[in-house]
């Protein structure tokens, strides 16, 4: 498979998930998430030749994604101010008011987690397997399970009460 075809497959298969992870990491800031996602896919294109199948392609993509998200805000903070304090008000039609409220709460609660837990939670919400999250974060699966149990409990509590 040539590089372009492979990249097209990666883009089609992962863009939405990567975008949502970035959006969750930046408290729903879609513009910032779009910029970061673009940066991530440019990096993926640049390094695609160097990918050696030592890990699965999705682990490789998520590693690039979480690491880029971690440092991106620091890179751009001197160039322009990004507000991560407000959840975007535009929600598409089929989404009910009740769900919209809960989603707002979820964003706010995810924001209260520290960086590592936030990344873990966003990957869980995207349905990424524990083994893959463990490889992306660099924690043993056992440690990760304990941690996930605690984060899930905190998130549920927070959506209910508003605080972690």
């Amino acid at each position, binding site marked *: 498979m040539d590089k*372009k075809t492979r*990249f*097209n497959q990666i*883009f*089609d298969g992962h*863009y*939405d998930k990567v*975008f*949502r992870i970035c*959006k969750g990491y930046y408290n729903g800031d*879609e513009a910032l998430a*779009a910029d970061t996602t*673009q940066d991530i*896919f*440019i*990096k993926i*294109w*640049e*390094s695609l030749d160097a*990918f050696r199948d030592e*890990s699965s392609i999705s682990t*490789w993509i998520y*590693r*690039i994604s*979480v*690491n*880029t998200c*971690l*440092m991106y805000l*620091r890179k751009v903070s*001197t160039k322009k101010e990004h507000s991560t304090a407000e959840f975007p008000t535009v*929600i*598409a039609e*089929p*989404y009910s008011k009740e*769900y919209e409220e*809960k*989603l707002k709460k*979820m964003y706010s609660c995810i924001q209260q987690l*520290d*960086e*590592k837990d936030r*990344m873990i939670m966003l990957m*869980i*919400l*995207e*349905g990424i397997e524990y083994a893959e999250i463990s*490889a*992306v*974060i*660099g*924690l043993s699966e056992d440690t990760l399970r304990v941690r996930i149990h605690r984060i*899930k409990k905190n*998130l*549920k*509590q927070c*959506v*209910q009460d508003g605080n972690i």
Partner: protein
Amino acid sequence: METFDELQTIWRMQPNTVKQTTAAALMQKGEASLKQIRRGHFGTIAIITILLVVLIGYFIWVKALKNPNLTIGLSLMIVVMLARVVLEWISKQRFNSISLNLSFNEYRASVQSYYIWRKKVHTVFIPMIYILYTIGFTLLLPAFKANLSYGMYLYCVISGYGFLVVFAFFMVRILKKEMKTLDFLKKLDY
């Protein structure tokens, strides 16, 4: 209270955002970025070479060897300016060598170690460079006074020391910003 599965469903029901770009556009940007990186490497080497040639040329032109103060002053300035450029080049190389394909924990540790190196650069090497550059410049002043008009001499003194003040201000700003990043990374170390 919702179960976690319910929260996950709400999360996944979020409306999909319309993609603001295409794979083809990103491939193009990726290629442009690779070319820029290659040009950047060539550019750094070119700048160092030009700087060396200009300074050595100036050194010969003003017959600096006949005046010990001028020799020491200019030599100091040339050496520390080169050291500064080389230090920045090494820093850039170090940062670029950190693979994004590391786990989050490994990546954080590598970036943290890079910023610890930057702290050393800012607190040890840059002050040394700054002091040596100031000494070098000060040693040139008697030669300037003897060979230039008073107005020109005054201009050299004000612009020379003025540059040093502005340089110090920017260095402190960069140091503060980088130390903030280092603190942020240290907090993730658990």
